[in-house]
């Protein structure tokens, strides 16, 4: 079990959250090339080390957050609220 310091609710068990994966920037909707969109959909860095990822606090504040987590030790060194279009629970994937 990982303890996740939610920027809104404080330290909570990871079972309250849904893992939403690595942070990837979406290509511009005006970009019709296949490559960037394919990479956005399927490409993964899947690093063994520090990574920035999104979590959804479904059993808490209902908001997305960003976390910097080490994928080998599961240590979390920083979290911050998600900003912009992806922050609201209404856009939950």
């Amino acid at each position, binding site marked *: 079990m*990982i303890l996740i310091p939610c920027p809104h609710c404080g330290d909570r068990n990871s079972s309250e959250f849904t*893992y939403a994966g690595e942070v990837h920037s979406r290509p511009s909707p005006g970009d019709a090339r296949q490559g960037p969109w394919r990479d956005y959909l399927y*490409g*993964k860095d*899947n690093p063994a080390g520090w990574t920035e990822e999104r979590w959804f606090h479904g059993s808490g504040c209902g908001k997305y957050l960003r976390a910097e987590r080490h*994928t080998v030790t599961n240590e979390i060194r920083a979290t911050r609220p998600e900003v912009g279009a992806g922050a609201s629970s209404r856009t939950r994937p």
Partner: protein
Amino acid sequence: MRRATRAGGAPQRYSAASLFRHGLTHEDWERVWRTVEMRRSYDAVVIGAGVHGLATAYYLASNHGMGNVAVVDKGYVGGGGSGRNTAIIRSNYLTPEGVRFYDRSTRLYENLSATLNFNVMFARRGHLTLAHTDASVRTMRWRAEVNKLEGVESEVIGPDEVKELVPFMDTSTKTRYPILGALYHPPGGIIRHDAVNWGYARAADSLGVEIHQGTEVTGISTDRGRVTGVTTSRGAISAPVVVNCTAGWASLVATMAGVRLPIITHPLQAAVTEPVKMFLHAVVVSGSLHVYVSQTDRGELVFGASTDPYASYSMRGSLEFTEELATHVLELMPSISKMRVLRQWAGLCDITPDFSPIMGVTPVDGFLVDVGWGTYGFKAGPAAGEAMAELVATGKTPESIAAFDLARFEEARLVGERGAAAVGH
């Protein structure tokens, strides 16, 4: 290609007579495989000494006479997913290409002891996938029909027949998730996974393949889009073909060659209980309860579950897992509540977007992948090895794995096995 020969004569054959002779004379058993100096060049380098890597090397040597092959592993033979899985063999998948592929593997497993001259203890036990919802009954029917069309024995049975096969199962309607039926797959069974690894290692070694344990690949060298070899913790090796047969580290190894894979690595935990007298013959799986259970020939119950819900390379077990597992297993078989869990462990699963593996060529010439095996890699080892060996030797992708190529993600030809690949997805 050089014809494979073994330095120091033919390997010792195992048989009842040789066992008897050893029992009488107490002479030393020969080492199961050799430890040799690493050379600077091979016809092919296989990364990962698990069942996929060793099977690929074995079939290269046995089916194609290509014995000048090195299998390198940063750990030891069968120390990754091949020694951490729950050793279940089955072929009752959902897509025709999946069913055909896993059926080939099941058939190779059935005769593997004779092929490798090594007892892999395959036991055909029958495999039950329980359905607790109308939706899963529908998927079971679908799977049963696809299986029958492909010539694989599978049928949907009712709760009474489940009770007959597994008398200890609670098939009443008083449970939280009553059993509505099950997909019964008689050819399914279990095997001793360590023996499979050792058997392939020994057989490959006897045909000239070199196994280098404790040899970590630190880089893959390429020249104008073609692979030229690997650098390892024990020096560089040049080879025209490099096959990535790793699990857990598949993305990291592929990145060394500049290939980006659609893989997320999740840990999957498993546990065994203390051994008891044989009471559970069939392999029992419940997707809704996220659990699968079988009893080994030693009498231990082996449990597996769904993958941990976030990406990680950590192989530590969690209390959360054991608690959840116990709750779900007792829901199925309340009578085993006094049994004690002896140990738990975790392995790494490379999950792809369509719950199907990635086998074949990559944009880098000569760099081949046999990765993305998620939670279903062990049962596929022999068929994957056979097909990858054919690809290495002939340069042509065999029909059996054509659907599982890396390019499918570009061309929107995903092979949707989500409904049959594992539990709890």
